[in-house]
């Protein structure tokens, strides 16, 4: 019989090896799936993983990886701080929406004035919006001990309804012939989060994501607060003896996650997406949770995991149009990738051993 035995230290070897193993396993299982659907399995897998990076059009897809991956990384970095400390914010989707609404709202309030300070103000409003939305579960937890998983999740639905209300009411484009959705911020230069270098995919959101990765790395490894976060997650009792103030930690972790998610929303709405609309949110907040775990809550890991997720999205779209794979098959494929990553992850912290059955 096989059992698991906890390793005294997480295995370094397996830390690096598991993602590779998981991707290989997914490719094998995916190949079976695609063959079952009547598609050439090798070509399908190649299309998803190879085309976006190295095909003749990679000059277009590589920047798109940044565009798709940046919000994921930015949100996941914020979430990972809390997750490390055992604070479970799963409402990033809501914080993302509110950040976008607040940021876009500030920008639209100035329309059509052109001024240098509009975009910075929007960034501030976006971050504040996300922060405030995350403060609701944080304060309720600190004050009443309510479960933040549930409150933050509930607030996602509230945010979605607010988004619909804004798109159909307050923020609706007055020149949009009555259609829902705000003015397009891409056509409002002072509010537009444009590519910093055209064709590079680099916009302020990508820059912020990279900065967030670096700051999170420094925070966790070089800073007392980072130490407290890690300690609280790993040994809550010890943390209390070490003088960690749990309330402050909750406010910090949820607040940071909210602000980063709000920023991601603002950069998206003012850049790639352009407008507040009913279907503005496409699930980045939830996917980022998966990204955070795939990256093992480590900043560098999250960066790589965000890239991997973005790759499957973009490669999946190419496979759809080139090979006629249904969108559902891509979804199943992504699901399998996550399952395998989560499943093989156990080898990092545990050793699998064969034991003879003992009589209990």
């Amino acid at each position, binding site marked *: 019989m096989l059992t698991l035995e906890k390793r005294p230290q997480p295995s370094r070897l397996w830390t690096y090896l598991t993602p590779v193993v998981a991707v290989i396993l997914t490719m094998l299982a995916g190949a079976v799936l695609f063959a079952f659907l009547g598609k050439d399995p090798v070509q399908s897998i190649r299309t998803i993983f190879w085309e976006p990076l190295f095909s003749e059009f990679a000059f277009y897809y590589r920047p798109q990886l940044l565009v798709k991956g940046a919000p994921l990384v930015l949100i996941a970095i914020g979430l990972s701080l809390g997750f490390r400390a055992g604070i479970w914010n799963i409402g990033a989707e809501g914080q993302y929406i509110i950040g976008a609404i607040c940021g876009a709202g500030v920008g639209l309030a100035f329309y059509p004035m052109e001024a240098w300070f509009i975009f910075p103000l929007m960034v501030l409003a976006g971050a504040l919006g996300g922060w405030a939305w995350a403060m609701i579960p944080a304060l309720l937890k600190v004050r009443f001990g309510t479960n933040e998983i549930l409150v933050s999740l509930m607030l996602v639905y509230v945010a979605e*309804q607010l988004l619909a*209300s804004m798109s159909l009411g307050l923020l609706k484009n007055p020149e949009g012939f009555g259609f829902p959705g705000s003015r397009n911020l891409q056509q409002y230069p002072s509010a537009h989060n444009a590519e910093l270098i055209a064709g590079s995919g680099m916009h302020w959101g990508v820059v912020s994501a990279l900065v967030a990765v670096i700051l999170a790395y420094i925070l966790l490894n070089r800073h007392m607060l980072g130490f407290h976060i890690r300690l609280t997650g790993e040994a809550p009792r010890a943390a209390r003896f070490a003088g960690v103030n749990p309330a402050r930690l909750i406010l910090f972790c949820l607040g940071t996650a909210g602000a980063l998610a709000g920023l991601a929303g603002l950069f998206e709405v003012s850049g790639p997406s352009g407008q507040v609309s009913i279907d503005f949110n496409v699930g980045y907040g939830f996917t980022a949770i998966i990204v955070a*775990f795939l990256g093992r809550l480590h900043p560098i890991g999250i960066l790589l995991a965000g890239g991997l997720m973005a790759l499957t999205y973009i490669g999946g779209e190419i496979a759809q149009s080139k090979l006629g794979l249904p969108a*559902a098959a891509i979804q199943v494929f992504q*699901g399998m990738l996550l399952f395998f990553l989560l499943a093989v992850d156990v080898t990092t912290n545990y050793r699998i051993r064969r034991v003879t059955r003992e009589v209990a």
Partner: protein
Amino acid sequence: MDFGSINPILLLASLMVAATPLLLAAIGELVVERAGVLNLGVEGMMITGAICGFAIAVNTGSPIVGLVAAAAGGAALSLLFAVLTQFALANQVASGLSLTLFGLGLSALLGQGYQGIKPPPFPRVDIPLLSDIPVLGPILFRHDIVVYFGLALVAAVWWVLKNTRAGLILRAVGENHDAAHALGYKVVRIRILAIMFGGACAGLGGAYISLIRVPQWTEGMTAGIGWIALALVVFASWKPWRVMLGAYLFGGITVLQLNLQAAGVAIPVEYLAMSPYLITILVLVIMSADKSRAPAALGRSFHASQ
């Protein structure tokens, strides 16, 4: 504006129907969470149940067989979650979210070729005598059997949790898995059973939508009901009877707002639609003063050697 056009009897009767898929999924998730496991994959299991039930019902011509298949399908999918979280000790939040993603894709693949087909009709049961009672008859006693099954299931779960040894063990596992393990209970086995029960209930709830309430198959047809079921469990503070109350509240608000609209009352639909969630948060806050809290081990992985 014409409130008179709302027929309260019919309103309550349709509320019973609207609440049933929610009720089924939520009571299943309640058992899972009482065992200390948080499965966010309810939506994925529901939609998988919806297509399994639909396909089997169409192919066998029997809606009852379809319902059984739906429960089996939901349970089978939940087994994936169980393996990940109980054996591979993967994070439950991430696993649950992945399960939803996977279930949505899988159901769409399975469902190719089932669009535009009408499933075999489901017999409605008019309970003799009782269904003729004025007012109460149409509200309570003229539904399909799944509505009654849902109510019976709530009662059964309540009774098992409260009065039986099995229920006691389940709750012990959910409160403190290390202590339960020390007492010799098979924590992992109990949790897997609970997860599968939750999967079966979610599958059944999904099939209720595709076979009875709508009835048809279309991709993504559960449209977020699984997420509401999750909210409902919290709203109910993990108590079976409150799940029922919550299902009627959540289901009822949709039906009520449509009724008000049809009666010509100008209501801000978005704000009404967000009210159940705000109420849930309020309940959470109030509850924190109460003894009834979330199961203490909720969402934590268990490994015997620790």
